[in-house]
């Protein structure tokens, strides 16, 4: 098969797999396992997660400290961050024909910004530079489960993750549950709108991983591995 067959979703020679869901939904664990499996199958894989680039994270930190951030600037700074990350980390491997595994993508912004009151259509316009992925998995899990996982692993809940800037509640845990509940409702809404593949993430890790592999198999049918590329050359 011609290794240059472009994706029917976005037109690049590579493939784009997106993992979305609440913090503590298990998506990062699953993304790492899938990437490992893909590499073992001989595919060229590039794994990336949406953690703030240096340029913008310093701004967000400063903004948070001064309390200057509003839903609009918060949204625009994250969009700046994502655009930079897209240019550097996602687009080059996608053009080079890699399978790009993304832990969080534009959907994270759709959900988070809508929960902060931004106009959803405006947010989608801003992110229109991000191509449609070949598959977007949504890891569905009850909010309570994510909170339990967080407490169990002794992770601190941060101010913005709990949506404390929205004044939903003075109590961090209470605010966290309410805000994450908003995010979950948005995820459920866009999962339908964007035809995401919904994964029941309350099940054991192995079961979920097996389901993911089944899901990506047809997308990768005929997609070149390293070995096939070398033979073609």
């Amino acid at each position, binding site marked *: 098969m011609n290794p240059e067959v472009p994706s029917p979703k976005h037109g690049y020679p590579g493939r784009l797999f997106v993992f979305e869901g609440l913090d503590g939904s298990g998506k990062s664990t699953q993304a790492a396992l899938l990437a490992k499996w893909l590499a073992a199958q001989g595919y060229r894989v590039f794994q990336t997660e949406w953690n703030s680039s240096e340029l913008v994270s310093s701004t967000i930190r400063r903004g948070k400290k001064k309390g200057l951030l509003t839903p609009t600037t918060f949204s625009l700074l994250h969009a*700046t961050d994502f655009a930079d990350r897209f240019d550097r980390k996602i687009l080059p491997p996608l053009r080079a024909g890699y399978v790009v595994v993304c832990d969080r993508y534009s959907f994270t912004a759709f959900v988070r910004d809508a929960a902060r009151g931004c106009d959803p259509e405006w947010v989608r316009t801003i992110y229109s530079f991000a191509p449609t992925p070949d598959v977007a998995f949504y890891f569905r899990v009850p909010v309570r489960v994510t909170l339990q996982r967080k407490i169990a692993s002794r992770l601190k809940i941060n101010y913005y993750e709990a949506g404390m800037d929205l004044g939903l509640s003075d109590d961090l845990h209470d605010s966290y549950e309410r805000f994450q509940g908003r995010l979950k409702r948005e995820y459920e809404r866009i999962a339908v709108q964007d035809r995401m593949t919904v994964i029941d993430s309350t099940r054991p890790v192995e079961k979920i991983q097996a389901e993911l592999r089944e899901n990506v198999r047809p997308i990768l049918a005929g997609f070149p591995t390293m070995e096939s590329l070398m033979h073609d050359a």
Partner: protein
Amino acid sequence: MTPNTYGTPLPGLPPGKLGGKLIVIEGADGSGRSTEVAFLKEWLEVQGHAVVDTGLRRSTLVSEEIDRAKQGHTLGATTMALLYAADFGDQLENKIVPALSAGSTVLADRYIYTLMARAIVRGASREWARRLYAFAFVPDLVVFLDARPEILLHRAIGKYGSLDYWESGMDLSLSRDLFESFFLYQEKLAAEFEWMSRDYGFHLVDANRRPDQVDAEVRALVEPLYQPGRRRATLPRLPRPSGTPSPGGPAASG
């Protein structure tokens, strides 16, 4: 003024009307903007109006990042456009909104139009740029100081002793010659300002004249804003197109 935006509501805005007025002075570098802003501020204050002047890239949130990015030339066109939009959003919400709430006149030395024009000549689509800035307030008045490129060149050299790298659009690789690049870049910007002039209701003022002549004409436009029962100076009607526009440029070209 009633806080009307260009289509996208600004979340978290205090309810009710904002008392002040928003006056925008637009124009290329060297069109006499800063001089006119200073004249107008003085005149308005003598009339008894509280004036807050604001410009581009004066916010505390990201100006450092913008300066650093300019030095390193490290960011893509879409990323830069978004960074400027974040900076503008910060000024709008943390400077312009409080000033208007306090009943002051906000005198803006350039506004979203310059930011949009710069983004578009660097590869963003018009539709994407327009919708990116749809959260901005519709000003009470937009004055565009219209000057010929020869006049701009003359004033730019008079001001800096040479041509500025960015105001000549040297990052666009239009020409290796600074002089030629300046003309090509200003031509491109002028083309963008032209369609905006119609769609956003600019009041064009001939800026190929002496500063006092320009000022007299601008005052005549500003004066009616403070008369009771006045009508809005600017009433843009923007089409709301369907579908999601692409930002254009390198990111969306594949």
